[in-house]
């Protein structure tokens, strides 16, 4: 009995060691190959040097992105022009822009688009606002890691976990019964005797779901902005203070301009994440009760309800929706480069 236990234990440890070793081997192998490539290519000089460096630095990323994202994107555009219903369907035919026409004329999808725009405006603004506030407040604070860890915590939780957590906040039980949802409990204590059934009451429910996204994303904004704030040397702040800047003015005239670029980057990233997010809406309400957003509808069309072509059209629309963001960032970047 004990012998089998020992052998079991050693086999478990052995399996663990093999698995981890494989991962370490991979990382080391990867770094070793990089080192060799850098070493060999480093000997090139003269006219060859720059093109070679560009190829080495950019090649792997381009190759991987082409394989993992560009080809699927082309497939998706292609699918959006057909009448494909399920994955692997053998007979499909081209239907032109029919799926796009459907997306823009179907009243349900129209509402979905409007709601997605709402998400896109509110969530990044609030999440980045909170993240920036916390980053500023704790930037030079003692024991800063305590509040930072608290705000970061939600970011470390999977969406499934977040859904469970927030069900303990938004749960509705008739007011005469013991409450299981924190929100109901709090507002009842505050004197609102008959609170609504939060998650099925539009348009309130959409905003409550946004709160979850903000809760998750604020940690991201805080960490990245915090890193940028840290990069501002104390000397700069101190000399500004010498000049009489303090509090909000210091923040507005020195800190924000110095992290402006990072701020735009974070805002853009949160916007794109928000545009893509479907997990929250999917797991909380499955888009019911007027909470649907484009990404959820797209996911359901493609993988749940077998309407691949329609889902693909929505994906392309999502992609086009980001183009203005891209253009804005392009302009920012150009300006940045001109200054330099």
């Amino acid at each position: 009995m004990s012998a089998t236990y020992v052998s079991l234990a050693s086999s478990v440890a052995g399996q663990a060691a093999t698995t981890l070793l494989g991962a370490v081997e991979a990382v080391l192998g990867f770094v070793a190959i990089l080192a060799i490539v850098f070493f060999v290519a480093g000997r090139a000089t003269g006219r060859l040097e720059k093109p070679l460096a560009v190829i080495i630095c950019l090649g792997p990323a381009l190759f991987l992105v082409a394989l993992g994202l560009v080809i699927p994107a082309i497939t998706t555009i292609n699918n959006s022009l057909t009448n494909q219903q399920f994955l692997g369907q053998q007979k499909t035919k081209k239907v032109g822009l029919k799926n796009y026409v459907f997306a823009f004329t179907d009243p349900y999808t129209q509402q979905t688009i409007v709601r997605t725009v709402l998400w896109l405006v509110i969530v990044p603004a609030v999440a980045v606002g909170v993240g920036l506030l916390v980053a500023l407040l704790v930037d030079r604070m003692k024991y800063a890691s305590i509040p930072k860890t608290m705000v970061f915590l939600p970011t470390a939780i999977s969406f499934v976990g977040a859904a469970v957590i927030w069900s303990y906040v938004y749960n509705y039980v008739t007011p005469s019964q013991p409450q299981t949802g924190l929100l109901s409990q709090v507002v009842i204590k505050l004197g609102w005797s008959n609170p609504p059934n939060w998650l099925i009451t539009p348009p309130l429910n959409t905003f409550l779901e946004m709160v979850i996204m903000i809760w998750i994303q604020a940690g991201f904004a805080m960490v990245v902005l915090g890193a940028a704030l840290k990069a501002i040397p104390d000397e700069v702040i101190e000399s500004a203070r010498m000049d009489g800047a303090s509090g909000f003015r210091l923040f507005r005239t020195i800190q924000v301009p110095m992290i402006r670029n990072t701020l735009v980057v974070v805002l853009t990233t949160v916007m794109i994440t928000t545009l893509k997010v479907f997990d929250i809406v999917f797991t909380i309400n499955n888009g019911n009760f007027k909470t649907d957003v484009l990404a959820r509808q797209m996911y359901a069309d493609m993988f749940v309800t077998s309407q691949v072509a329609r889902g693909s059209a929505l994906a392309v629309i999502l992609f086009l929706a980001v183009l203005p963001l891209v253009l804005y960032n392009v302009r920012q970047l150009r300006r940045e480069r001109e200054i330099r």
Partner: protein
Amino acid sequence: MSATTDPMSATSATSTDVKKPLTGPAATRAVRTAFSSPTASIVAIAIGVLWTIPTFGLFINSFRSKSDAATSGWWMFFVHPSFSLDGYRQVLTGQGGLFIPLVNSLAITIPATIIPIFVASMAGYALAWMRFRGSDAIFFTFFALQVVPLQMALVPLQQYYVHGLRIAGITVLPSPGVNGTLAQIWLSHTMFSLPLAVFLLHNFIAQLPGSLIEAARVDGASHLRIFRSVVLPLSMPAIASFSIFQFLWVWNDLLVAKTFGGSNPALQPVTARMQSLTGSYGSHLELLAPAGFLTIVVPVIVFLALQRYFVRGLLAGSVKG
């Protein structure tokens, strides 16, 4: 927050020569004192607490029985304490324990975090400092690709792993022969993370002071050498913040692991194990609470460990005004 009434700032303004501000540690000390206002701390802590309450509810419920958690709020725990470690016991011991899945998760996450960092920072550097025709276009393509939902890529990518890349029936690129191994998961995560990684790291690297890079060029350093000895070390804060999130995404990922992870249940990561613990008809959803807590521990450790890389003054004196 109003520092005008702060006696410290008043003293320092009078006692220091305005033309010659403090430098080095003295400056750090002065600034730290000025910013450690109690109001700021209280506001920060208040936000922190507000952010933690929902998770705290889950934490309390992870110790309560299924029917308690379903019929009364978690705050009732303080009125009628009922304590049970049953959930944790089931999560830790169910189906052969959590040890192997944890190891698998690490084996997936570590390479899938480190590899994209190298690939992306190299690309970011090339796009930011080795200007060539088309470099802007390439950067914008990377940027725009962020929005491609990774669900779109599941089928085409899997076809590539299994059959190689075929265009019109001709194999353009043979299969890499990684089907059924962890390498397939690493590759996929790397691909999906690149647009954001290149975007974030490029923007940071582009802001590095040109003078440093110019100086190295003048000394005769090659591009690759500058990347290795100037850019990489100076990018540590950006790399640290990106790796935290890449680590988290991979750690919490279920979709990629499930799709590309092969069929051997012994190679499943924690997320897949957690999911299978919840039962066929969701009859053990209560296990999500303890399970959620156990999986959160590792990312928080990583966060705390990487925090020290957000070093102040890495670029001291060289940031453009």
